[in-house]
């Protein structure tokens, strides 16, 4: 190969630098970015930017999954909620949230801190692994919007649009950044040794448990449970769009997990990213396979909507631990997540909780599973994993329950019976999603 020879030549001319990753050198000359430092800086920041783009793409996936799995009469409403989640999410996370989540070293090990409003634009001294604040913000903002958008599925079909916007702003500006700070902002959970690589807990469980709180405050949709409390079918209006959404989410997750390495140059980083990417893939595959096989056994027919949720659960489950488990473990984590989601959905039905898209089993339960799996398969200490996997959900659930409760008391959170029956698209927005199509609910 010409290429290899060329590099070898370069290498010789540069002095046959015999260096391996990780050899320790005491002296640092931080103020002097070498050409290599600058290239590493560019590579790190540009690839993080590309990862952020992939994570933003997940918004399209969530919009398709959540609207697809619901009835056509609430489609505009769900799509609109998703659009505003990302729009308001970005704006408020930029204005307040980022400063709360990354308050800086002064608050290390703490519970709460604030670095000030808005996001800086001062370029750091270029070096591999050093992130420009704008790059870091973009990536984190995409995560915040993800946490917010998870809830719209759980509260679909009955929550007022105005109340939803308030919820969405509070989550991205306050609730998510505060618990996020505990781990990723260098807070007390981080100090404790809690490991959550890309946010099974920090992102997904927050969204999932917030969704559970919303579903509880709202109560089930009319017709979801019959007089005897037996669950009834409220079927998906488009499994095509839901499937498309899952494929998009799967793709977007390659920004979510590998991107969370936050640095890409240097062979340690590169190697980590690649393992993470393969683990993410195997967990998604395992989740889909697990849920598919379980529904086949339990219900005698392989069910697509469950397998789709299974793939997502696999992805959520691997998120906390993708950097620290083997390929085989990743597959196992995914498979188990696929089982969890099926049982979780049945459990909600038993408890008469109505979570139309399964946001709680997929993001809440599989999120907790991800945190625990980091101990079981990833060699992390059990104690910190258990604490983190319990405290973050509790925080999200209680704080958001309060938020939903207050929204209810002050504004009323649920649309009227008639509005719900007619559908939120017509009553809240005066717009139908599928004009001209004959859509007909007969049972």
């Amino acid at each position, binding site marked *: 190969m010409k290429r290899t020879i060329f590099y070898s030549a370069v290498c010789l001319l540069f002095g046959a630098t015999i260096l391996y990753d990780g050899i320790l050198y005491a002296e640092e000359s931080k103020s002097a970015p070498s050409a290599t430092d600058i290239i590493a800086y560019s590579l790190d920041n540009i690839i993080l930017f590309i990862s952020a783009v992939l994570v933003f793409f997940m918004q399209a996936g969530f919009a398709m999954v959540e609207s697809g799995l619901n009835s056509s009469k609430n489609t505009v409403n769900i799509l609109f909620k998703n659009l505003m989640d990302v729009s308001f999410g970005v704006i408020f996370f930029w204005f307040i949230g980022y400063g709360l989540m990354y308050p800086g070293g002064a608050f290390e090990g703490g519970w709460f801190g604030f670095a000030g409003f808005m996001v800086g634009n001062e370029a750091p001294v270029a070096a591999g692994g050093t992130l420009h604040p704008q790059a870091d913000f973009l990536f984190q903002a995409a995560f915040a919007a993800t946490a917010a958008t998870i809830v719209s599925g759980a509260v679909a079909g009955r929550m007022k649009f105005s109340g939803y916007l308030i919820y969405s702003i509070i989550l991205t500006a306050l609730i998510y950044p505060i618990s996020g700070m505990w781990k990723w902002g260098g807070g007390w959970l981080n100090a404790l040794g809690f490991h959550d690589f890309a946010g099974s807990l920090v992102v997904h469980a927050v969204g999932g448990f917030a969704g559970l709180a919303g579903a509880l405050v709202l109560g089930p949709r009319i017709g979801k449970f019959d007089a005897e409390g037996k669950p009834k079918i409220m079927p998906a209006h488009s499994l095509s769009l839901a499937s498309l959404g899952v494929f998009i989410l799967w793709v977007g997750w390659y920004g979510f997990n590998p991107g969370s390495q936050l640095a890409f140059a240097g062979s340690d980083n590169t190697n980590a990213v690649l393992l993470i990417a393969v683990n993410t893939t195997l967990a998604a595959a395992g989740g889909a396979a697990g849920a598919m096989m379980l529904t086949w056994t339990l219900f005698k027919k392989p069910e697509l909507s469950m397998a789709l949720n299974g793939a997502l659960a696999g992805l959520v489950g691997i998120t906390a631990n993708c950097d620290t488990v083997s390929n085989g473990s990743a597959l196992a984590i995914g498979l188990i997540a696929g089982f969890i989601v099926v049982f979780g959905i049945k459990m909600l039905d038993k408890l008469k909780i109505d979570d139309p898209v399964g946001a709680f089993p997929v993001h809440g339960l599989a999120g907790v599973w991800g945190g625990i799996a980091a101990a079981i398969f990833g060699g992390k200490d059990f104690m910190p994993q258990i604490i983190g996997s319990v405290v973050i959900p509790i925080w999200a659930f209680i704080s958001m329950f309060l938020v939903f409760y207050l929204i209810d008391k002050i504004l009323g959170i649920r649309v009227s019976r008639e509005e719900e029956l007619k559908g939120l698209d*017509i009553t809240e927005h*005066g*717009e139908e999603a599928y004009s001209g199509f004959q859509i007909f609910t007969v049972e």
Partner: protein
Amino acid sequence: MKLIKAVIQPHKLTDVKEALKEAKVTKMTVSNALGCGQQAGYSETYRGVVHEVNLLKKTVIEIAVNDDFVQPTVEAIIKGANTGNIGDGKIFISTLDEVIRIRTSEKGKEAIG
């Protein structure tokens, strides 16, 4: 033989079917339509243009019955569909000259049930 055609609110179909079952009427043909009656519609905006929608979604149930079944069938439909609100719908009854079962070519009373 009579043909009973009821125009009802879509979300009352389950109740009507339930009531019909109790009245031992299990055969029917259901379709959808848009209805314009006393019930006020709603207004839709699209890109800032307002539009009055006065054709509302309705469900149509058609049941062919022998004459002695007309009364119980009508009562069952009313029981299932009535809420006392405008828009509850109407029942239209007409005479059938003949009913034929395609499978067996049976006619009349035997075919209807």
